[in-house]
């Protein structure tokens, strides 16, 4: 067995496979299918300072090799997480990372500060890239100034590993990545969903309740892979790759492009056990090609 351990700016992972926010609940929902100790980390649902109802139904549209969603960050707020969910997830046997979102830099920072107090949460992933909320979210993630302002505020409030999740809905994702690196981000993860739309031709109306939504699934993989490669060549901090990964081969492509670890998102909906299969598949690949450690293949594809 190859050495699958990776270190993301101090965050130790038993293997490079994490589950993406909003696609794996709190991990608890998948315990019948997956031994959570067999994956590197679970990134839980986007959490905000105050509870959010999210957008009205319908929130989903199926597309060719993918889906659109406009959930809109439905969650019960950070205090509910700390009180009711944290006690249930702190001993899952894997790293539990909280995805944090907000409407203002102050919101983000306060939410992060409350999570900083939770002993068993070793990292947060800052969501400056949600395309489905009117205020905040992606608005911060689409300009270097906006992204920097959120990371600056959070960095003061949060001492542990700070991952910043980037939006692909920008002209230059490397500029945003460099801006958050400059403000003290420990790692970046990319890509969040691509903004898209679905129209029902028979009913002659928009499918999603708010009109647009975020596209995910295998259809976005080439875009994600390109962006991961570009960002990995531009920044000094670790890059976490995601976007359409549904097999070990997909994951390996991201590692070769320069990702230090990967996240699996929408594929969890099709195969709830895919995350452990990908971890196993990475090991088999390394053995087959004679690599001792997964770190030996990170970024070797120039």
């Amino acid at each position, binding site marked *: 067995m190859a050495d699958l351990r990776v270190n993301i700016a101090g965050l130790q992972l038993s293997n490079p496979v994490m589950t993406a926010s909003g696609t794996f609940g709190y991990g608890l929902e998948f315990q019948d299918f997956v031994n959570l100790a067999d994956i590197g980390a679970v990134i839980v649902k986007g959490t905000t300072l105050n509870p959010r*109802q*999210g957008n009205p139904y319908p*929130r989903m549209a199926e597309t060719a090799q993918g889906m659109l969603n406009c959930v809109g960050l439905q969650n019960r707020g950070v205090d509910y997480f700390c009180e009711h969910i944290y006690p249930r997830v702190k001993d899952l046997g894997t790293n539990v990372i909280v995805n944090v979102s907000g409407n203002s830099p102050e919101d983000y920072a306060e939410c992060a500060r409350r999570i900083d107090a939770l002993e068993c949460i070793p990292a947060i992933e800052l969501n400056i890239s949600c395309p489905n909320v009117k205020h905040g979210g992606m608005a911060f993630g689409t300009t270097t100034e906006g992204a920097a302002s959120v990371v600056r505020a959070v960095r003061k409030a949060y001492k542990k590993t700070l991952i910043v999740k980037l939006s692909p809905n920008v002209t230059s994702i490397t500029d945003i990545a460099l801006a958050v690196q400059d403000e003290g981000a420990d790692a970046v993860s990319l890509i969040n969903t691509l903004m898209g739309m679905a129209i029902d031709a028979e009913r002659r109306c928009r499918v999603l309740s708010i009109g647009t939504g975020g596209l995910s699934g295998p259809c976005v993989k080439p875009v994600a892979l390109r962006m991961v490669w570009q960002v990995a060549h531009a920044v000094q901090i670790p890059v976490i790759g995601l976007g359409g990964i549904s097999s070990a081969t997909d994951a390996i492509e991201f590692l070769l492009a320069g990702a230090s670890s990967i996240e699996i998102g929408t594929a969890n*909906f099709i195969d*709830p*056990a895919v995350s452990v299969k990908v971890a196993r598949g990475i090991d088999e690949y390394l053995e087959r090609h004679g690599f001792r450690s997964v770190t030996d293949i990170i970024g070797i594809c120039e």
Partner: protein
Amino acid sequence: MPEKYILDLRLTGVERLSERYYLLRATRPEAPLPPMLPGQFAQLRVDGSASTFLRRPISIHNVDRQKNEVWFLVQAIGDGTLCLTGKKAGDVLNAVLPLGHGFTMPQMPGERILLVGGGVGVAPLLYMGRCLREKGFEPTFLLGFRTASDIIQAQEYRAQGRLFVTTEDGTEGEQGFATQHSLLQQEQFTRIAVCGPKPMMVAVGRYAKSAGIPCEVSLENMMACGLGACLCCVEDTTDGHVCVCTEGPVFNIEQLKWQI
């Protein structure tokens, strides 16, 4: 809730019941099927369809423990369901099951339970009827169809309880919608379970509420994961937005914000 599984089931039969309705029977060759409750559903993987990405949520239609079979009633309506109904006996059917909360089983002996269905919504009612019968109740089925040739599996329902049908064109049973059947005026029930088009569920809900009868409906909101992770299938309830896949698909009408 029973434990959930990802299973490679083996199809034992694919039978066309009417123009658009197919009965898929599947077994688990290596072991007994896990426990499943009436009203729960499975997420069936669709193989070999270019336009279909997600699994399809399909009700548990019946469980035959003797034959170790689970039945699915599938309406071939889009590429995904056409792909499922195009399968043959012997093919693998990958299923995640059992999912969601089912119907409430009556507690009091002698309860009179009415099961109302329309369209493909009749699917979970057969298994509910079977479970009721096994517990000593005699369920009454009231099923609505468009026309006589749409009526499927009448014998299966009759084996579990009394069956009343309506057809919109009057070619069999009473003419009109299920909610207009004279049975509702003639008999008293202690509990109602409904699955079908939303206008039907609203109409039955209205009847149940006016008569003071507890009523549960099974919703069919569009889903992605079926596990409570994606938060796509939400219904607005007295508790806010909740996932139909985990908090439902069966809800008491009092929980819903419908105009009843």
